[in-house]
């Protein structure tokens, strides 16, 4: 062989890859399910959601990937992330290396302090959930609202519809508010740039 095979391999960039990561119990897997459902309402897009977590019910690293493409998705797991959400320092440390050099990093700025780049979006999702949306449990939904604003990958209305389809009865208002708060705060930052 005159050239090495691996040097000749070109991975086509026909996929958009999102990872939500944090600690077990922060709702990263449910968040990715709602995001994938919202994106999947667009019939031209193929969507796969995968997850990885430990045997514990709470705590331990938890991550979930959403891969989107207009072509058939052969390999279901993320290979080069276009967007990484980290809700804990541990998940940032662990997954930052998987982010594409032009990928978007989003962190919960109230929980993540050591960030290896200046090129990121930081919002205190957990604090916003507790203080503005009415419950800390909707921090993942606040983050989804921000993701919709930062990436434009899904219309806000579709996201709200997907989130509400999973919301337990009586929590609809908190969940709707959570999307709106995340979206609003993200737009404030995005506009500054």
């Amino acid at each position: 062989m005159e050239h090495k095979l691996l040097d000749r391999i070109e991975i086509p960039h026909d996929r958009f890859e999102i990872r939500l990561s944090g600690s077990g119990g922060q709702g990263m897997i449910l968040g990715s399910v709602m995001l994938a459902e919202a994106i999947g309402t667009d019939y031209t897009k193929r969507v796969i959601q995968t997850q990885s977590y430990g045997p514990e019910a709470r705590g331990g690293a938890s991550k979930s990937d959403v891969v989107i493409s207009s072509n058939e998705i052969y390999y279901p797991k993320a290979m080069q992330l276009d967007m990484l959400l980290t809700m804990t320092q541990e998940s940032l440390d662990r997954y930052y290396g998987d982010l594409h050099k032009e990928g978007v990093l989003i962190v919960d700025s109230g929980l993540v302090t050591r960030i290896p780049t200046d090129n990121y979006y930081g919002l205190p999702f957990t604090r916003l959930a507790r203080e503005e949306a009415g419950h800390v449990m909707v921090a993942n939904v606040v983050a989804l609202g921000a993701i919709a604003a930062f990436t434009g990958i899904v219309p806000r209305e579709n996201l709200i519809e997907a989130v509400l389809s999973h919301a337990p009865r009586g929590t609809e208002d908190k969940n709707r508010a959570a999307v709106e708060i995340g979206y609003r705060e993200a737009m404030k930052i995005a506009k500054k740039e």
Partner: protein
Amino acid sequence: MVDTQRKLLLGNLACVHGAIYAGMRFFAGYPITPSTEVAEGCSRELPRIGGRFIQMEDEIGSIGAVVGASVSGVKAMTATSGPGYSLMVENIGYAYMTETPCVIINVQRGGPSTGLPTKGSQSDTMQARWGPHGDYTAIAVAPSTVGDTVTETIRAFNLAERFRTPVTILLDEVISHQREMISLPKPGEHQVVDRVKPTASPEEFEPFAHTAGGVSPMPAYGEGYRYVITGLTHDAMGFTTNRPDEIKLKLDKLRNKILNFKSEITKLRIEMMDDAEIAFVSYGSVSRAVLLAVALARKAGVKVGMIQLYTVWPFPDEELRDYLVGCHKVIVPELNMGQVVREVGRILPPDTEIHSLLRYDGEILTPMQLLEKLEEVM
């Protein structure tokens, strides 16, 4: 037009949809990660359509209830993971011997013992063939996508009913906990097979009759046909026998009713094999990484193809050999310490090189690892 059948479906729930489509109306199980959503889905769906869901005290009771339900004429299944499958093997053997159709889903996780509850694996592939003791021929199918899981579950029920035998679906954590936007099959889109019922009168009925195809018609208990069911080796009437001629006849029946009709059971996916000099042979979730690796290597000018085994057992010796005839190198990637690679090696001509690519650290094989292996063997 709005496709109301389109939904973001979890792999484990794809089993439920496939099974109900195929006519499954009884599920007994005991929850275990990563299979639990199969039981959850059945507990939601079956009562709505007049079916029955039972959470049993353990896996031994679960498979016992499934065998009993099937004997009473209902299509039945259970779902578990490696540790639970290990507990079930005795009664799965009973189902082989009593020729009771049923479907067992094994959502594989790392082992041995309780191992890795949340990590995918293909280390139960041989267990699906050799789990229970004794001589018998097993059928096992292995989907690789959520969509496949629907159709392979339908196929598993059809094979179980057609051949009066247990069928194992080899899923793994990677597929079971993956959600994909898919369209569910419409009524009539797939064939649904039901067991053949006896036409003889109850007086002339032989419950384990030796027929031309090897499969005996099977009435439901309570339909008027009285007969004995036993795990002891039995004659055509179902009565225990120690006669060498009858023993041999029974064991030949268990084998021949399946192996003589292997072409109905074998299912392969063939990609880019026409001019391939190197081939990947894979099954289950790994096949998706292979598909991408092969597509990328082809773009770089490498004559490589892939064969995916949807039917893992009975092993498709002849069909695989035919497709691999022009290849001088074969790579078998698996999430275990080497199981199907031995079967592939067994059927290859002596001058064909065989290479194994194994991963058993809880993570899955990536397309880049497959390409590295390809480069290494080229």
